């Protein structure tokens, strides 16, 4: 049975997470519950992948992949700190300073946090969720099967690679690492309060590297650009740029997180395109061979 590339990426990250948690549990970390949860997800998704087989354009696959990735997004950030014996914040902060020749980008944009920009950027940061969900809905329902498969594959590759960062480079971001260095508080309003509350609801800042806010929104934009929807891509590109700025100004991400997200989004688009074209070519060859037989 040929494994669908989206299933392969999802099974890969679930396996890595489960194996890492198993090692941590064996080393004495109190992560038994998490291990059971992730092992259960692995088994459930393997069952879904087995049932779906190589079927093209299955909406159920898209829903299953999204469900796994969104669950991992909320579970992984915190268990990572207990599963690996290091924290990546000092390394990421150092890399950030190296990017700006010794100055921290988070501190460089600090003046913006004390202006009305903070509220506008909070609004943009919050808009990530509706933008992503609508993009997913439009891709799962409104696209031809091959494009749907490509979207789901790219999404799975992007999230799987990003979760490797969450797991092996656990970081809480400048808001925690550089808390003592910031000199002004963020002057936000209602939207900023919504952002703060939603971050607190998932247990506070985590999973800084890479920025999935930037990675996922950029992936959705690039995907639209590639698949005959330049208008939607152009409309949302300014929002993606503002989301990137917002993650810095609101102190949730380092600049290197944004760079990594940019690279991963481009990679996901490329890998998805290559994987689905290879799969379609192989399917066509098989069809030809069957027809010839």
């Amino acid at each position: 049975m040929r494994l669908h590339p989206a299933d392969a990426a999802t099974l890969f990250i679930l396996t890595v997470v489960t194996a890492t948690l198993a090692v941590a549990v064996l080393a004495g970390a109190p992560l038994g519950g998490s291990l059971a949860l992730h092992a259960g997800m692995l088994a459930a998704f393997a069952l879904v992948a087995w049932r779906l087989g190589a079927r093209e354009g299955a909406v159920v696959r898209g829903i299953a992949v999204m469900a796994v990735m969104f669950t991992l997004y909320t579970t992984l950030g915190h268990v990572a700190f207990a599963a690996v014996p290091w924290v990546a914040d000092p390394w990421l902060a150092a890399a950030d300073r190296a990017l700006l020749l010794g100055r921290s980008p988070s501190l460089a944009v600090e003046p913006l946090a004390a202006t009305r920009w903070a509220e506008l950027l909070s609004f943009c940061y919050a808009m990530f969720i509706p933008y992503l969900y609508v993009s997913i809905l439009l891709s799962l329902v409104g696209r031809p099967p091959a494009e749907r498969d490509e979207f789901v594959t790219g999404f799975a590759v992007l999230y799987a690679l990003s979760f490797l960062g969450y797991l092996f480079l656990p970081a809480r971001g400048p808001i925690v690492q550089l808390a003592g260095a910031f000199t002004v508080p963020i002057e936000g309003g209602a939207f900023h309060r919504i952002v703060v509350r939603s971050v607190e609801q998932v247990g506070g800042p985590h999973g800084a590297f890479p920025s999935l806010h930037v990675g996922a929104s950029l992936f959705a934009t690039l995907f639209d650009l590639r698949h005959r929807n330049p208008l939607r891509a152009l409309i949302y590109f300014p929002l993606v740029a503002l989301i990137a700025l917002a993650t810095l100004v609101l102190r949730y991400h380092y600049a290197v997180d944004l760079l990594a997200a940019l690279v991963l989004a481009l990679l996901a688009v490329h890998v998805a395109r290559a994987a689905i074209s290879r799969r379609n070519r192989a399917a066509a060859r098989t069809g030809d061979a069957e027809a010839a037989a």
Partner: protein
Amino acid sequence: MIYRLMRALWRAALFGFFRRIEVQGRGNVPARGPVLIVANHTNAFIDGLLMLTRLDRPVTLTVKSTLRKNPLLAALIRALHVIEFHRSQDVAEGADPAKNDAALAACAARLAEGGCIAIFPEGVSHSDPRLRPFRSGAARIALAYVDAHPSAAPLALVPAGLHFEAKERFRSAAGVVFGEAVDLHAWRRANPQADARALTELIEQRIRGLTANFEAERDVETFARAAELLESAGAPPPPLGQEPAPDFAAQVALLHRLQEGRDWLARGRRGELEALEERVRGFARKVRRLGVAPAELFLPMEAPRAAFFVFREAELMIAGAPLFAWGWINALPAYAVTRALVMKTSKDRDHFASNAVFLGIPVFLLFFVLQVAAVAAVAGSLGWAAVYALSLPYAGAVALLYRDRAGGAWRRLRTFVLFAGRPAHRRRLVAEAESILADLRALAEEFERTAAVPPGDR
């Protein structure tokens, strides 16, 4: 440098005027070596601009000498090394046919350098439903070069068909189809006695194969509707934004097949042909009165699909409204001035697009500079002026695409509401379309069978 700058400006202007420009057979134009492109001529300067902007290699244009009377064009002709030909019918306007020897020599020199020349053998841009008689200039250029350089790099003669959905309409589609190249050195070896007339006939035959030509204007509509029906195949139109790129080469092939079929039917069953043509024309009149395209008759009418359509389009329209408004408001002064100038200066259908592109570039640039300067003065900040300057082309592009999409969405919505309120009317039209489609298919099968039988056995 000037060539590249002008090319970029023209690309931007063509993007502004046309909704879509499709290029097919680009691989038929060799990337290096001497090339002579010959094409039909139906949209004045636009035809040349399509050649300049859609090929990666530099292209030398040939034009009539009288264009030099316009000082702006004269400057461009000089800057871009365009080659001028003096036509005999332009003598009263100052043309000097004796200078054509120099023009031919310039063409030969350009080809000897491995250059690419584009020429329109009809010699004049027109709006006729068929090609005009070809002049021998292109053939003479080619033969002069081949005879003078028998062992040089082979000269590739590339025929091209230029297509316009509605050439005078803002945001319509255009296409260039490059046909298979002819190795003129090889052709010359095979036809050592051939003269310019023989080569002109070959050029005309190749261009005819890439273009749709009709006996009369009324045939254009009849064939276009019949071809649209056959292309739609009675299937629902693709969702907005997912329409395949127009395949002009396939459309021309289909029209040629229809014309062959029509000639075949006219030979022995004229009554049947006239009845079928009248049905197609009658059907076209009905759908035109309703303001729908034939393919839209087959629009899915199920409520869930309609709801998803409304959701998808509303999301795009609402999210894009601020950028659209920004782009539209800022482009409005330049657009209004360009439009007024184009309406004032365009007398023929094949002037609109050319005038819009040529007048639009300086007008938009002027307004761009004025608006950015005004923002810099009002804001007192070069930074904000730079942001504003960057936002203009971006928001302008969004406004154009938004306008196209909103137009498409409005059209689909209108069709849906129209048919939802008159389902019986829709059923009658669909039945009529399907009946015409079935007859066309049956005739096509019969024609294919007849064509397959050798003439002696019929």
